[in-house]
């Protein structure tokens, strides 16, 4: 909402207040001021001039030499505008004036003729072309009425106005009118309001004799008032009115339309003026449209209606979509002489859906959508009639022909002073509240400390005690509310075990060298189906898709963070950031339903993407690229950190999009909870990446495996014994299996078994490999004897021979 201060001053005294001070007060009390801007550039030495003479320039066809009376002198001005003529009152920039764009007006000779100033067009004065009336579009501006010669043209053209832009929250539609703003400002400044004139001169002829009103759906249209104004002369509206419309961003059209718009801005009540003679009948019938009914609206569009649209008809066919737009056939035009003036209350929802469906949001529909003030509907009609009488030569017929089922009842809200103080944390007394209610112009009854407040109909946003808490609170001033800390039982506060673990996982991974990413949950359909972990994959599992995505890019919910993380990796590699080590903790959204009947299962996952070099330390000749074992090692470390490493195993596995030979399923007590491996070379290529590795595991399952019991294991007091063995096996025997067998067979004495060498090559038979393990024997209760170790060692060798045909390497 744009508020012209020059206009606002008509209702409220703003003396002694700078626009900035006013803006600050409005912002702090209730409505955010989003801008304080001068409307134009006030211009010095810009005056009203009277063109006494206008003669053709002796040496130039397109120029005129004018004698212009500017009050204290007569200036000779050469003017090139085609519309300049003797007898006009015009805006004259005298020598010394500076027009927008730093255009300095000086005395000059034009083709030999003296020129002392310039007769200006509105554009030259800085007024936006769209607000310039058509008749002046190609030439100078000519004042209407009879402004005093020599008067300050700058202020007549409103160039000295300041516009305050209000950012209205949806509840404050009461401030969508100058009167509403006046109420707000008057309350803040504690000053009276000067209301506009609604007294209309009427004729003896009665409106009810020339028009009837029938409303078929009183729910959607509880009030419809029609007035008739005859003998209208359509022409331009007075300059001051046009200026005010322009200051609010509305283009002046003609006096009739401008007056309805002016009242809309002043009262917040949209009105519509029909050409009575072209209305098609003398009966107004308001009803729901029939399915498929059509109307040609003011903008020339043919629109098809449906039964949830409310229309104004002439008894036969629609002449307007209620509250949204009038029809072209009954539009007020130059030859209009009788106007049928509509002031109505239309159901907000009906107007909203019609405006939305036809893409016709307007100053009018916005106000109806928010609900207009019942009290002002009829008054706005009267005000418009008064203006039509004053500025369009109209004669107003007696009476308002109305259908009226509208409720004008004021709601009441009852509260006590102590409740007010209890919620706000203040210690106001009754008198303080009385004073605020007086400023707000709310009437009330008081009994002890209990207030029963009648809420004016203009404030449709207030119906609860809490709404009054806000009114009283904001007028009391939020700055004046003290700072206190909550009383009552204090909680300890803190993280849940899960949240604390999640933070530990993050810190571990960061310590391990990974950077956290945040990628989008919404991705393309293709990516949503890519790299889905085998533990997520299942019959009918599919990504959730949006009903109406804004783009294909963000249309489906992810089933893994990996595709978007890989895109981030690719982005970096393309920018010469070739070493990437990312992790992300975030949800995936799993469902088996093609059409959701319930929310998808949101599972928190830990995903990682690594590519490029892992360690570069050139001068000591160390360089290590990321490989499978780097990435697996990070996971191993994590599981060890979480003390669940004994429940974890890896198994060669196949995952779509992953390298078939370099991918492992991550298993927790035998159940697959994710995967780790190298990306399939085809996918690597698709992402423009070289070797890239990824992991994706179910974090919730990992956390569930963690035992909450933490016990202390005494430090062994007896020495351990270390034994190494090198075993030759078939190359497809998995080291993990072999190790597991060694540990199982060696229990309880063998406490650890570490792979320290893997060999395959010329010193071994083809198809064979050697795996060397270092075994740690320990009995925490005593010193081990050699024979015992020997015995277990042999048992292990026998077992691996039996199970894997493993031979001791010679």
């Amino acid at each position, binding site marked *: 909402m744009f508020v012209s201060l020059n206009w606002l001053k008509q209702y409220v005294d703003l003396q002694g207040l700078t626009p900035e001070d006013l803006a600050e007060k409005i912002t702090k009390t209730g409505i955010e001021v989003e801008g304080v801007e001068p409307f134009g550039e006030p211009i010095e030495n810009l005056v009203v001039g009277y063109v006494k003479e206008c003669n053709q320039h002796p040496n130039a066809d397109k120029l005129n030499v004018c004698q212009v009376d500017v009050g204290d002198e007569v200036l000779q001005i050469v003017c090139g505008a085609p519309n300049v003529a003797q007898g006009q009152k015009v805006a004259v920039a005298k020598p010394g004036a500076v027009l927008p764009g730093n255009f300095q007006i000086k005395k000059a000779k034009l083709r030999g003729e003296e020129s002392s100033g310039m007769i200006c067009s509105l554009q030259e004065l800085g007024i936006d072309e769209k607000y310039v009336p058509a008749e002046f579009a190609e030439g100078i501006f000519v004042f209407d009425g009879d402004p005093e010669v020599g008067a300050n043209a700058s202020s007549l053209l409103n160039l000295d106005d300041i516009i305050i832009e209000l950012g209205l929250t949806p509840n404050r539609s009461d401030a969508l009118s100058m009167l509403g703003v006046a109420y707000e400002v008057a309350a803040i400044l504690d000053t009276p309001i000067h209301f506009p004139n609604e007294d209309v001169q009427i004729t003896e002829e009665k409106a009810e004799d020339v028009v009837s009103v029938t409303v078929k759906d009183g729910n959607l249209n509880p009030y419809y008032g029609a007035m008739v104004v005859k003998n209208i002369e359509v022409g331009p509206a007075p300059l001051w009115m046009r200026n005010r419309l322009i200051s609010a961003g509305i283009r002046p059209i003609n006096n009739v339309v401008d007056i309805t718009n002016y009242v809309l801005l002043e009262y917040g009540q949209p009105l519509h003026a029909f050409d009575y003679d072209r209305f098609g009948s003398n009966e107004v019938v308001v009803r729901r449209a029939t399915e498929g009914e059509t109307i040609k609206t003011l903008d020339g569009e043919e629109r098809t209606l449906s039964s949830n649209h409310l229309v104004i008809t002439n008894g036969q066919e629609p002449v307007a979509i209620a509250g949204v737009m009038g029809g072209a056939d009954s539009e007020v035009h130059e030859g209009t002489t009788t106007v049928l003036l509509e002031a109505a209350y239309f159901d907000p929802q009906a107007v909203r859906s019609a405006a939305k469906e036809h893409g016709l949001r307007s100053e009018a529909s916005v106000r109806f959508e928010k609900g207009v003030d019942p009290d002002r509907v009829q008054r706005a009609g009267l005000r418009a009639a008064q203006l039509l009488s004053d500025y369009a030569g109209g004669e107003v017929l007696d009476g308002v022909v109305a259908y009226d089922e509208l409720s004008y009842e004021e709601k009441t809200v009852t509260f006590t002073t102590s409740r007010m103080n209890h919620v706000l944390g203040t210690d106001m007394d009754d008198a303080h509240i009385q004073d605020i209610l007086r400023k707000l112009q709310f009437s009330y009854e008081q009994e002890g400390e209990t207030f029963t407040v009648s809420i004016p109909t203009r404030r449709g946003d207030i119906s609860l005690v809490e709404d009054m808490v806000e009114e009283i609170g904001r007028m009391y001033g939020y700055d004046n509310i003290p700072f206190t800390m909550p009383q009552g039982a204090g909680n300890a506060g803190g993280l849940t075990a899960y949240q604390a673990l999640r933070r530990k996982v993050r810190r571990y991974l960061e310590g391990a060298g990974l950077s*956290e990413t945040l990628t989008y949950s*919404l991705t393309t359909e293709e990516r949503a189906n890519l790299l889905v972990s085998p533990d997520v994959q299942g019959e009918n599992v599919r990504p959730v898709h949006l009903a109406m995505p804004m783009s294909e890019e963000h249309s489906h919910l992810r089933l893994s963070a990996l595709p978007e993380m890989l895109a981030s990796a690719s982005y970096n590699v393309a920018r010469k950031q070739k070493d990437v080590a990312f992790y992300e903790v975030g949800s995936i959204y799993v469902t088996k339903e093609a059409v959701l009947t319930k929310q998808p299962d949101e599972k928190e996952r830990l995903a990682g993407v690594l590519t490029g070099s892992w360690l570069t330390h050139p001068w000591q000749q160390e360089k290590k690229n990321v490989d499978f074992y780097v990435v697996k090692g990070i996971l191993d470390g994590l599981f060890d950190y979480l003390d669940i490493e004994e429940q974890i195993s890896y198994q060669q596995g196949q995952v779509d999009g992953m390298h078939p030979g370099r991918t492992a399923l991550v298993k927790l007590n035998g159940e697959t909870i994710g995967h780790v491996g190298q990306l399939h070379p085809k996918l690597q290529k698709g992402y423009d990446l070289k070797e890239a590795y990824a992991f994706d595991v179910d974090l919730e399952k990992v956390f569930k495996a963690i035992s909450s019991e933490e016990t202390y294991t005494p430090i062994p007091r007896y020495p351990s014994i270390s034994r190494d063995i090198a075993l030759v096996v078939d190359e497809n025997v998995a080291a993990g299996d072999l190790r597991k067998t060694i540990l199982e067979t060696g229990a309880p004495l063998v406490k650890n078994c570490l792979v320290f060498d893997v060999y395959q090559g010329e010193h071994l038979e083809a198809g064979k490999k050697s795996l060397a393990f270092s075994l740690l024997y320990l009995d925490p209760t005593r010193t081990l004897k050699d024979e015992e170790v020997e015995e277990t060692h042999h048992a292990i060798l026998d077992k691996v021979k039996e199970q894997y045909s493993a031979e001791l390497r010679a």
Partner: protein
Amino acid sequence: MKERLVELKTEALEKVAQAEDAKALQDVKVQYLGKKGPITEVLRGMGKLPKEERPVIGQMANDVREEISTAIDEKQTKMEEAALEKQLQEETIDVTLPGRPAQTGGPHLLTSLIEEIEDLFIGMGFEIAEGPEVEADYYNFEALNLPKGHPARDMQDSFYITEEILMRTHTSPVQARTMEQHKGKGPVKVICPGKVYRRDTDDATHSHQFTQIEGLLVDKHVRMSDLKGVLNAFAKQMFGEEREIRLRPSFFPFTEPSVEMDISCKMCGGEGCSVCKGTGWIEILGAGMVHPNVLEMAGYDPNEYTGFAFGMGPERIAMLKYGIDDIRHFYTNDVRFLNQFHKA
């Protein structure tokens, strides 16, 4: 014999002084202090001496032995030190060569910020509550006093999946869920961080996905002054002791009264500058007293319970705090961006 001992002493000390390496020194030691050495010999020959002279000579022999031994030890220590000195000299490296890089990663800026804010409120007794990102219309809107057809639903155009299920547009549904879980009993004191989604085209100031942190306190005597107190404590810890806050009236369907909180501009100290658009204040978050309809729908008696709620955007706070000019940076994951916020 005395003369012999003095002679031996002089001779031995001279040799100690002359010894150039460990071996020479060892030789001196063996020669003079060994079992077959001359001092032992002197001691052995003491039997021939008159009884009264024996202790004198014995004492003297022991002193000489002691003296030589000390000299040898001292010399040895000296030589070892010299050897060590030499070794250390040889072991000297160029300490200005670069070290072997340790792996460093770090959290995303938004995670750091969210954890920082969580911790601030944990310190004030809040717990952390989380909820689903794909949310039921009921929790996202209806339970928050936004019935179907409510005009305020326009404020946040949403990504619907079905008519009843959508991507949550704020983290407020977690508040509704948490209150419901408490079954009408207080206190409820939670912070709800998480991802939210809006139907926006991504540009420098809009993102279809972003994060939010909401806070909620419901109890029997929660006052608006408590909201001011808690937000003030938060603002001072988060943005600095010298920051002031102010509350401005605003509107949210789920709170009444509703406010927006500004903090005094750090750049100009409240004088007005380009960062605060000349107002001296920067908008940080929205807040208010929980709307009675919201309390009621979650099973609380609004006559008995009151509460406050607030919500803020970590992206906005990060952008203000670090002068980041484009919200898309948070989701592009450019390592040159990410790494900047891994410092302590």
